[in-house]
């Protein structure tokens, strides 16, 4: 399947996944050095969902994000410098330091923002779908959310409304098998999250969320359906976070996940898997791999440098931006 996909696109996807990985690793390190405050919800391990899904999008498509959203931001075209500056609370960040990790938005790239409220973004994505339908464009609106979010009323209200009006919305579940410490089997009554689509008469698709090509392929179908006016799709992308729920979660989540389970998933690292495949199918040489790695590392260093050198906002700026 991978052979049918343009090599350049493959290398782009690889580079993006690696950028997300390095960005997150750096953010965790900086958090541990108290250069970043609050909390970070790292998406390490889930990069294939972000990149596979966003590669199927156009720059003018909309995206609604979650608290674990750095990967989706980057995949939707965000500038790592402005993201890092936001994490540092600097004036040059995406939200001028007001939002922080959980609230990065990038309207120029169609990124309508992340959310600190689980399930809070789903209705917003539906609204963007209404906007597309009423403005008669062929954009789509993509909503990312976790497995845990599907237990909120907003999930059911949103999917129903989008299905009812055949809105161009793609519901992408980043199903990492846990909502904080709660396993999906102890929180979702359905056998699969994709089964929930049946209640709204829309397609529910199971996707290997650690396979970027699989995500890209299923997403491309869902996007085509949405652009054709046939309505929403629910993609259930099974994946795993390698780190804890947030930076304060002890032992990368060892208090509620077994070491065996964590090790098993580590073997299925979406980035390593993809690199192996690219090399095997001669889409990437080891030399190119090294060059990409070097470029990614440099870009992250650059982002940190930019963030460090940027000024903090002045206290009086606290009162700005409440209204336009």
């Amino acid at each position: 399947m991978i052979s049918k996909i343009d090599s350049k696109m493959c290398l782009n996807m690889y580079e993006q996944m690696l950028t997300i990985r390095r960005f997150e690793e750096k953010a965790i390190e900086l958090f541990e050095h108290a250069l970043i405050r609050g909390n970070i919800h790292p998406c390490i391990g889930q990069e294939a969902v972000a990149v596979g899904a966003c590669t199927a999008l156009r720059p003018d498509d909309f995206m609604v994000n979650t608290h674990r959203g750095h990967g989706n931001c980057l995949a939707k075209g965000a500038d790592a410098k402005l993201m890092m500056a936001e994490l540092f609370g600097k004036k040059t960040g995406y939200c001028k330091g007001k939002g922080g990790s959980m609230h990065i938005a990038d309207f120029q790239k169609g990124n309508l923002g992340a959310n600190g409220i689980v399930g809070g973004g789903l209705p917003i994505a539906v609204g963007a779908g209404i906007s597309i339908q009423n403005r008669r464009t062929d954009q789509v609106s993509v909503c990312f959310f976790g497995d845990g979010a599907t237990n909120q009323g907003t999930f059911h209200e949103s999917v129903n409304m989008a299905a009812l009006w055949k809105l161009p919305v793609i519901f992408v579940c980043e199903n990492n098998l846990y909502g904080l410490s709660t396993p999906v089997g102890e929180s979702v009554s359905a056998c699969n999250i994709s089964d929930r689509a049946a209640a709204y008469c829309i397609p529910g698709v199971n996707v290997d969320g650690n396979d970027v090509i699989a995500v890209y392929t299923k997403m491309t179908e869902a996007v085509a359906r949405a652009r054709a006016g046939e309505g929403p799709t629910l993609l259930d992308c099974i994946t795993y976070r390698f780190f804890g729920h947030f930076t304060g979660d002890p032992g990368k989540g060892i208090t509620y996940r077994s070491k065996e389970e964590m090790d098993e998933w580590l073997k299925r690292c979406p980035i390593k898997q993809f690199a192996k495949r690219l090399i095997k199918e001669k889409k990437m040489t080891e030399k190119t791999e090294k060059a990409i790695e070097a470029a990614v590392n440099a870009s992250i260093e650059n982002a940190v440098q930019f963030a460090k050198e940027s000024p903090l906002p002045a206290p009086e700026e606290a009162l700005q931006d409440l209204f336009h």
Partner: protein
Amino acid sequence: MSEITFVDALRITIKEEMERDPSLLLIGEDIGRYGGIFGVTKGMLDEFGPQRVRSTPISESAIIGSALGAAMTGIRTVAELMYIDFSGVAMDQIINQVAKMTYMSGGAAKVPMVIRTQEGGGRGNAAQHSQCLEGLFLHIPGLKIVMPSNAYDAKGLLKTAIRDDNPVLFIEHKLLYAAKSAIPDEEYLIPLGQADVKRKGKDVTIVTISYMVTVALQAAARLAQEGIEAEVIDLRTLVPLDMETVLKSVRNTNRAVIVHEECRTGGFGAEIAAQIQEEAFDFLDAPVARVGAKDVPIPYTEPLERAVIPQEDDIVKAVRKVLYRS
């Protein structure tokens, strides 16, 4: 007597009440094996089992609503809302259902439930995880509101709240969880509606609650060095509200500064200031002052968060102002 943290005080209280009332139910997110994100329910699942310690899906509306349903039908319930900000998701259940059930039924429904939650800024958790919302709930008749400022009070107040036959919103503060107090070994209860004078003083009355008690006491210590003796009143509960203690103090000091972390506009300080002028107008030597957060969401970055949330300095300045000193 032992020195324990606020979190430990809550945990011990809940455990004791679980033992006392064998039907008491706990419900909330990640409260089982994980023990709650602040560790308040650690060990409860093992001790009391999954029927009494119900770790839920992420469904705040159903958490609050089902706590109400259980409470109305004879199961006293303590629901945990991880952050007060998430009350937004459960707002219908809180304000239209929980708060009104007893009254709407002409007193027939009994609603013995506590909603335990936590609020406040200071940790860079940004706009949707740092709010103080007591003023919002104060405006809804039918909810008791308890906001302890230390581990000792938390224990005595939580016991009373759990045993109360009405809905109680029990609001903790995230910056207080690690703070320690000496707790006696024997049981004690603190009645709702009894303010506590945390520091005596004759020059000005500072009325406050929750974490701001700590900040106000720091301000009072600094003011003492300038020769200003501030009395610091910890309201401990907003509903019922102990105005007697406040008025008695104001009649003595003739000046009042109300301090809260929630936004200044529409905060409980407005209500208390109004009641002071209604009841003690003739005793006032200066307008009642209010210190509260700036009327914006809580920003992430530290310099802005500090500028928005009331600091020791803001209290000191407000006190000097009502004393006409600069």
